[in-house]
């Protein structure tokens, strides 16, 4: 057990070191969702968005939940990238010749991605606060948002890592990533509520786990517990199923890739 923890913490610290050395990339990762989506998009669509449709005091407070979950989505889907590089340059092979639990590498990655994502979500909520968005459910609500983010992130990160181990080249990886991420955003309630979508899009969006996450996070920010609780209960069920499927599928890939 002590050995297990020693492995996991050393591997996690490596991810932290790598991120902190890539100053530019770190800045970009942290700032990009806030700057692009929240500030530009939020303010740009302020007048274009119909308050009757969004059911929110302004577009930016409507959008905050979407940006939070989009950040979880993007971080999760990109969660396997570093492993992809490790696989390609042989570093993973070096790790695999050491007497570590095969799961340590995977777990360290989960811990790292979840931590970074949570920090980012907090920063986004902070920036939204500066634009006057006050979470209606307070600190407990923020904790609940983080929990939802992690539940969603685990499954996504698992998919991403499984993909990193399966693809033949890293071009494939990034193509699939691009192919998944934009539709996932547009076919969800991130930018427009389901009621405001063309019927067929609204129909598809209902099957997107992202929609469920957003529909729980949004009332936590906009309205309050009475409105939010049923959605929170629902999203926990949806995410447990989602995670179970992702973990089951990727565990097979991990076992094949790492023996």
């Amino acid at each position, binding site marked *: 057990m002590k*050995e297990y923890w*020693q*492995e996991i*913490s*050393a*591997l996690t610290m*490596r991810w932290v*070191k*790598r991120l902190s*050395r*890539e100053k530019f990339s770190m800045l970009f990762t942290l700032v990009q969702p806030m700057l692009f989506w929240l500030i530009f998009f939020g303010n740009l669509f302020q007048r274009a968005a119909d308050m009757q449709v969004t059911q929110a005091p302004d577009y930016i407070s409507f959008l905050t939940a979407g940006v939070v979950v989009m950040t979880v989505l993007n971080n999760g889907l990109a969660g396997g990238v570093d492993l992809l590089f*490790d696989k390609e*340059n*042989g*570093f993973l*092979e*070096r*790790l*695999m*010749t*050491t*007497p*570590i639990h095969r799961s340590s590498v995977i777990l360290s990655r989960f811990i790292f991605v979840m931590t970074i994502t949570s920090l980012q979500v907090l920063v986004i909520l902070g920036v939204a606060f500066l634009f006057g968005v006050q979470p209606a459910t307070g600190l407990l609500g923020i904790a609940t948002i983080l929990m939802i983010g992690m539940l969603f992130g685990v499954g996504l990160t698992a998919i991403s890592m499984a993909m990193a181990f399966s693809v033949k080249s890293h071009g494939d990886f990034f193509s699939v990533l691009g192919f998944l991420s934009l539709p996932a955003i547009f076919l969800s309630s991130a930018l427009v509520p389901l009621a405001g979508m063309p019927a067929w899009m609204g129909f598809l969006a209902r099957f997107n786990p992202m929609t469920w996450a957003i529909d729980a996070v949004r009332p936590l920010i906009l309205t309050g517990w009475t409105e939010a609780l049923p959605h929170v209960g629902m999203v926990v069920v949806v995410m447990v199923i989602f995670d179970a499927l992702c973990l089951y599928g990727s565990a097979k890939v991990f076992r094949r890739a790492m*023996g």
Partner: protein
Amino acid sequence: MDRAIAIQVSHLTKTYDKHTAVSDLSFEVYGGEIFGLLGPNGAGKSTTLRTIITLLTPTSGTVSVLGHDTVREADLVRRLIGYVPQERAIDRFLTGREHLELLGALYHLSKAEAAKRIAELLKLVELEEAADRAAKTYSGGMKRKLDIACGLLPDPKILFLDEPTLGLDVQSRLRIWEYVRMLKARGMTIVMTTNYLDEADQLCDRLAIIDGGKIKTLGSPTELKIGLGGDIVSLTLKDPSKIATLVAALTKQPAMRAVKATQTGLDIRVESPEKALPAILESANRLDCQLEFIEYHRPRLDDVFIAHTGRSIKDDVPMEKEAV
């Protein structure tokens, strides 16, 4: 020499999808020796090595390392070995010291134990000064040295080196050879792959020549050369019309193993030069064959390689160079 068996490979076959990379390989590595796998690119050297160090599972056959099966007791095997991969498996954002610290934790060393070993290793591979610089600032030779330090960190019983000097300049190569010899002197068993004949010749106690996934021959460099059937004496005659006469005269003599006419003279395989050379000169004189040129050489590893694979290893050797 201590003849305890360190590694036993029996009927190892490894196929990727449908492509067979190595087929029915069997050999032993003895404790304390430097064992080489020599072969051109794509021969199956890395595949063999990776299977021994538990990175790949055999399609069929078994491998045991110090008595432990590499599939059933993989974790135990991993505790006994060190590995220096063919690619520079280096994280460019970490410093040299951080690489070693990470591995220290993965081999479950205490902080103090790790620090002590890391200091020793950095000194050994002469990276003390560069230890706290990011690895992306290292030259090819320095990266290779860091790789070797990483392989040595667990203080392994057996060290595996995959093409340790590929693409290095002459100086760095010699340095790496020195390390390998020193480690052997300390009692370590070493298994390495190479496609350099001189490296195999100078460094390895025993070697297996592999080509197309099969072992073509196995033995010490000296044994392999002797196995070819003696040294070679090449004569060039002033008058080529006398070649046939001389061939006829020499063929009967006991000191000659094989006599062959060439365009300009004769190639003679001889068992011992002391007996053969005087006899050859005597016959040549007696038959009035004037010699223009006489050359004598022991068989080289090139000759061994060609004799067993039917081609030269150099056909496939890429020539990349990197500065220290």
